[in-house]
């Protein structure tokens, strides 16, 4: 075990874990965050997504030691001063989730997408979101919500 400092949603946490442990387990079990979730442990589904340095990162395959000192944002950290991010508001307006289990990854992947491309085309949304799976099949509304949020963020 080693002491590792993580900066999550603006707060510092010191954890004592094996350096090779995937970041996901540390976020969930040591820091107590519920946003990132275990879906596959293989980096294939995106349920565990967090944002590190502006990139959507699959935390189930990312060794915790490689996230040391970097700014990590989880779903819980998206709202600012109690105000939901435009994507979160769009998700509610479009009534996107069914079970909701994958939506952490959907929202954070969409955030990283809009941060690098504020006006994505339909094709760019499909391509940018393709690695984030939903087994309730809420894709249609997710894509509508991304377009709604992009519009709102532009105005």
């Amino acid at each position, binding site marked *: *075990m080693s002491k590792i400092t993580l900066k999550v949603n603006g707060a510092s946490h010191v954890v004592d*874990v*094996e350096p090779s*442990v*995937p970041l996901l*387990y540390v976020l*969930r*079990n040591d820091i*107590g*965050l*519920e*946003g990132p*979730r*275990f*879906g*596959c*442990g*293989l980096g*294939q*589904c995106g*349920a565990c997504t967090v944002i590190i340095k502006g990139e959507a990162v699959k935390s189930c395959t990312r060794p915790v030691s490689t996230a040391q000192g970097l700014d990590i944002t*989880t*779903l*819980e950290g*998206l*709202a600012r001063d109690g105000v*939901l991010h435009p994507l*979160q508001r769009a*998700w*509610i307006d479009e*009534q*996107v*989730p*069914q*079970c*909701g*289990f*994958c*939506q*952490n990854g959907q*929202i954070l992947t969409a955030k990283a997408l809009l941060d690098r491309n504020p006006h994505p085309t*339909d094709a760019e*949304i*499909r*391509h940018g*979101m*393709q*690695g*984030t*799976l*939903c*087994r*309730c*099949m*809420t*894709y*249609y*509304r*997710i*894509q509508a919500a991304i377009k709604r949020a992009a519009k709102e963020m532009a105005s």
Partner: protein
Amino acid sequence: MTSPSRRDFLKTSGFLVASVGAISLTDLAAVQEAGPYADPDFRQLDSWIVIRGDNTATFYVGKTDLGQGTGTAFRQIMSDELDIAYDKTSVVMGRTDITVDQGGSGGSDALQTDGWPMRRVAAEARRVLLEMAATRFGVTTDRLAVSDGVISIKNDPSRRVTYGELIGGRRFNVALTGKDIDATTGVAKIKTVQELRMVGQSPQRFDIPPKVDGSLQWAVGVKLPGMLHARNVKPPVAGANLLGIDESSVRAIPGFVKVVRKGNYVAVVCEREEQAIRAARQLKVSWQKPQVAPFPTSEDLFEYMRGAAPTFSIPPVTSGDTDAALDGAAKALEAVYDVPFQGHTAIGPAHATADPSNGQMTIYSNDMKSYGLRNGVAQFLQMPRDRVRVIWMDGPQAFGRTAADDAGFEAAFLAKELRRPVRVQWMRQEETAWDTKGPAYTIRMRGGLDRDGNLVALSYEARACDHNHLGYNEPDTVLIAQLTGMRRSTPARGGVSTPSDMYVVPNRRMAGHVVGLPVVWETPVRTGNLRDPNGPQVTFASESFIDELAAAANADPVAFRLKLLTASTDDDSGFRRARSIAVIKASAEKYGWDSRPSPRPRRAGNVLTGRGIAYAFRNQTVVAEIAEVEVNRTTGRVWVKRLVCAHDCGLVVNPEALRHTIECGMLHSLSRALHEEVRFDGEKVTSVDWISHPTLTHADSPETIDVVLVNGDPNPHRPDLQHYGAGETMCKPTIAAVANAIYDATGVRIRRVPFRPERVLTAIKATSA
């Protein structure tokens, strides 16, 4: 009753005052001290409804919401009958210790069956409150008006009293009647459709904000003091026998606690989750493969099924003389349709946490049938039933997977062994390989047309690979029961279904057989309930074949169906025929259907477009769907560009939540149509993750989905219009609609699911060669 009443929980735990959807862990920890857990009495009004002094109400229902918004719908129907503002209500679902046993979720019965007692008990509460107000004011109840939980005197609105002032913090103590929970009633009458105000509106689902802001507490996130983490080591091949375990292979892992073995069941338990994962990977276990190959390969499955002796057959449904009519037909067609095993492959694998504190067993679970899990675990562990409870919490999409809740049983078993709280979770490869599967089908269709293109004979003969279909959390059928040697002696019979349509065919025969794989125990190829368990398979065959007959008759597919439906005016009490006709017409109108036979005349270019229709009912819910596809003839890729669904489930409680559920249900079947297949070699499942078992992705999402909510009842304003189930019917016709659209686009008939690019491409090449 020795257990604390629910009202005591209210006082001591603060649990019930927590806002809806926000069950905090502190509250859970406080509640878990209680026990034993007597059953809430469904014949007591207090078991269903609590009204507080601040004029808010909480409803306690024995259902679970799997993400389709049924919890919101329950609040709508109950607040409507109670006459209290929707936003002053909350609902508690699926906790076996404090909610009545309505069986949890399944069969799309939330509103269709269980909504009725909810409406009646809420109406009864309203009646009782009016009586109380009448006594207080010294008037008869007919002089009282009620609005949003406030009762006033009609001619003197200044004299008013709230529900909270009348009953807040006290019990109703009103007995209800009814032979079973579905029949629960008071003496009050429910409202007519015309009197309902919240029903038919679309309040936003209350479960969505906490799913979006990260505040929801999931079953997968339960943490308890002293909790251990467990992982399984599953047999490497179906039916393998465990020979030995070398525990020294994991003893040095930090946090290692124990290897638990019983029969062929093996689990490792550690202090931390990643330690348990490592231990499960590292544990040396030796297995003996079975003597008999447990199943054919997935490539050989359908030949195997066609040659296997049936383990069960349904009595054929016949009218006329189908064989004679086929022999005499001007044109006879025959086709065989194959649908492979398809899994649930939930986005999150099976999981549960169990707490054995104080001689009780509390299971935190996303089990859609939490009541069945409670009963099953009590029997499995031979514990008194009132010492076991299940606290239902949100989880990954269920659709029948948790009807056989392997993880719930395992967590309880391990917690009892370890005498500490244990959290167990399956890994992705285990879930995709070992979850319950929808049965594979091979279906032989025959049909005969007369000289004028009329359908005179139709034969359906199905074989479903469904022997030993797993049921509802029975303690001797879940996987751990099988592996630990506690399984029942006789496999479950399984089932096979026939088409659900209202077509009038003078000579018709429908027959079905169940077949089994060589090994039906301790196998990953095990069938269970997958959302409308047989409907997509059966309807793929029946509605594809109707399209083949329409093409053979050179008839438009919509017109051909309408002719078959309107050939009779006989209808049932739910007007299924009239409503079948209405949904087909409504879908064609919404789509802008151009009447012509399929296939569409050939056009130049590599991308071919086409449209297909299919229709089905489930109980009294009727749907017609149209798919518009683009087929790339150089790659074989199929993109469903547009989907239209005309849907009639009677009275609609929440139109927006319903539309969303229909959209997603169609896409679920679209995923099954295009991608999903359980693959196996002769001894194990080989489709085990999202690469080897692909699913629908964002790239497949249609450009447009149109949902038309139809009320095709001949008397659309009937005051007693019923609310039918809507969670599964839309899954039925999608695969056939897509197959019919592919045919329309390409002239190629695909009779084997899924329509992956290589299969479509091969078929296109074979036809054009």
